[in-house]
């Protein structure tokens, strides 16, 4: 009997755990370790942040779902990996510290035969002074990264709306809180949902709305932008995004590294080296992501964290990490099997794997400050990686010598639906597909992507799709009847 341990129960981890329990649960042991007791459909946190959904609509308890399967759920956070075991224990194991189930603070060594690292990111609020301390949000800004953060954001938004109704103008600042952020899409959705909300509440003319981002152009999205057919042209996402901001009356600051947040003001540096400030009454700034800070130890107890993890704390996999300059980058640099090169029974999926490099061209200000979006790898790619990794592990348990499935961001596409306002008849969203995620300028000269597989449009239909996905993926994650029919 093999023991499969999955660290994390987000999109990648929960997908892997669900298929592990289905395929392997009868004969093998599946253990899921997550510090959170609840699963969260993060894309809908945007709607919690504008008071259009409750926390209960976007979360559910994980324990009853795993109780339905043969998976063993431990509400705990992973502290370290001993991939060779220890002097007193020959089996590889993970040391975890409980965060719930009545065992808070106690540690346990959980042995494994196969390990999937799908911990997701550490929300690194502490990287920007004033944005927060460590993983905790600070007092000056709001966040929609978790359902609880989004509830707080919604309450703060309500206060601003009341002030505007009383005749007080309000300044909104939404975007990224550091030069190395990813997840611009979440901030993009939030600024448009706030604008829609303010229109509905009749106070839009009392609001000054500004977007601030580390993208070198609007519509970069951490993917170096994308191109699709529109109106007889192959059009850049820069035009697509700028058009939306212009239509909705928003200003934008791009190529910006926020280096300090104070009460009602951010200080930022732009790619031209200028240092400037921006006032706000309400600000939602996405923090940069980092690895969760796990350590790795060899059998004799020496620290091998550098062997297993990249300097940013993400896990090294079968990527080519040697390409330092943009000119040298190739699609083949991106990992395929997501297997650790050092330990063949360890895999990483979702945000937890270390990308070989960004997708967007790296840029620095004249002062040397890096201002480059890091690659997005949430949502659909995460789920596909989770499924590919557990498929390989299933086959390796059954005798395959190597991983049998791949999930490479240079060979897969992604579908993204970005809400621009909620309402069954008044809502809109931007529906985008991109193929492949990592551009291939040799195969698709000029744009880097298949212009028949890369599309974008704005409208009510896309809002319906986003609503449908909300219900479909929560149904799937709860492992309700027919869940396997809903594709990743």
């Amino acid at each position, binding site marked *: 009997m093999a023991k499969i341990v999955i660290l994390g129960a987000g999109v990648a981890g929960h997908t892997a755990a669900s298929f592990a329990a289905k395929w392997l649960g009868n004969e093998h042991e599946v253990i899921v370790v997550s510090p959170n007791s609840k699963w969260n459909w993060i894309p809908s946190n945007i709607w919690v942040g504008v008071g259009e959904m409750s926390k209960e609509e976007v979360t559910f308890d994980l324990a009853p779902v795993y109780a339905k399967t043969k998976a063993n759920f431990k509400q705990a956070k992973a502290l370290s990996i001993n991939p060779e075991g220890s002097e007193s224990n020959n089996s590889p194991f993970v040391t975890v510290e409980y965060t719930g189930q009545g065992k808070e603070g106690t540690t346990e060594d959980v042995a494994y035969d196969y390990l999937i690292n799908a911990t997701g990111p550490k929300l690194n609020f502490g990287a920007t002074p004033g944005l927060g301390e460590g993983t905790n949000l600070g007092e000056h800004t709001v966040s929609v990264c978790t359902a609880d953060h989004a509830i707080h954001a919604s309450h703060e938004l309500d206060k601003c709306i009341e002030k505007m109704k009383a005749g007080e103008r309000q300044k909104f600042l939404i975007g990224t809180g550091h030069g190395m952020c990813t997840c611009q899409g979440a901030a993009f959705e939030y600024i448009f949902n706030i604008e829609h909300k303010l229109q509905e509440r009749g106070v839009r003319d009392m609001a000054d709305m500004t977007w601030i981002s580390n993208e070198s152009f609007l519509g970069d999205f951490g993917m170096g932008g994308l191109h699709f057919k529109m109106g007889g042209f192959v059009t850049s996402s820069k*035009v697509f995004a700028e*058009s939306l901001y*212009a239509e909705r*009356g928003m200003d934008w600051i791009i190529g910006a590294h926020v280096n300090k947040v104070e009460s009602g003001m951010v200080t930022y540096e732009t790619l031209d080296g200028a240092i400037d400030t921006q006032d706000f009454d309400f600000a939602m700034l996405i923090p940069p992501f980092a690895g969760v800070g796990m350590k790795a130890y060899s059998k004799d107890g020496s620290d091998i964290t550098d062997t297993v993890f990249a300097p940013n704390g993400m896990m090294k996999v079968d990527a080519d990490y040697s390409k330092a300059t943009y000119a040298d980058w190739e699609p083949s640099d991106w990992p395929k099997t997501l297997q650790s090169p050092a330990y063949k029974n360890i895999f990483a999926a979702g945000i937890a794997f270390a990308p070989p490099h960004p997708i967007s061209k790296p840029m620095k200000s004249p002062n040397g400050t890096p201002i480059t979006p890091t690659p997005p790898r949430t949502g659909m790619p995460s789920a596909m990686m989770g499924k590919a990794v557990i498929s390989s592990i299933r086959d390796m348990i059954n005798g395959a010598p190597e991983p049998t499935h791949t999930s*490479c961001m240079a*060979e897969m596409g992604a579908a993204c639906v970005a809400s621009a306002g909620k309402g069954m008849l008044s809502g809109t969203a931007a529906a985008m*597909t991109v193929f492949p995620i990592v551009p291939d300028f040799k195969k698709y000269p000029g744009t880097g992507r298949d212009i028949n597989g890369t599309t974008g449009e704005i409208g009510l*239909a896309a809002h319906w799709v986003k609503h449908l996905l909300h219900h479909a993926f929560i149904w799937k994650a709860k492992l309700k009847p027919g869940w396997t029919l809903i594709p990743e």
Partner: protein
Amino acid sequence: MSEEVKVDKEHSHVQHVEPYTPQFGTMIPSSGQKFMRTCVIWQIIRFIAINIKMTTLILKSHH
């Protein structure tokens, strides 16, 4: 005292755009395009089209 100018209805949704600002230098939707974005009959057709596109993409991406 200058006479108040009635805003052309084709431009009412973009009357906030000021000349020589970044917003002035990009594509802005026509009123017809704006209407189609929430026209239910057209959007039902687009809903089907988006689902087909996304399903095709998903099938192409699994290895």
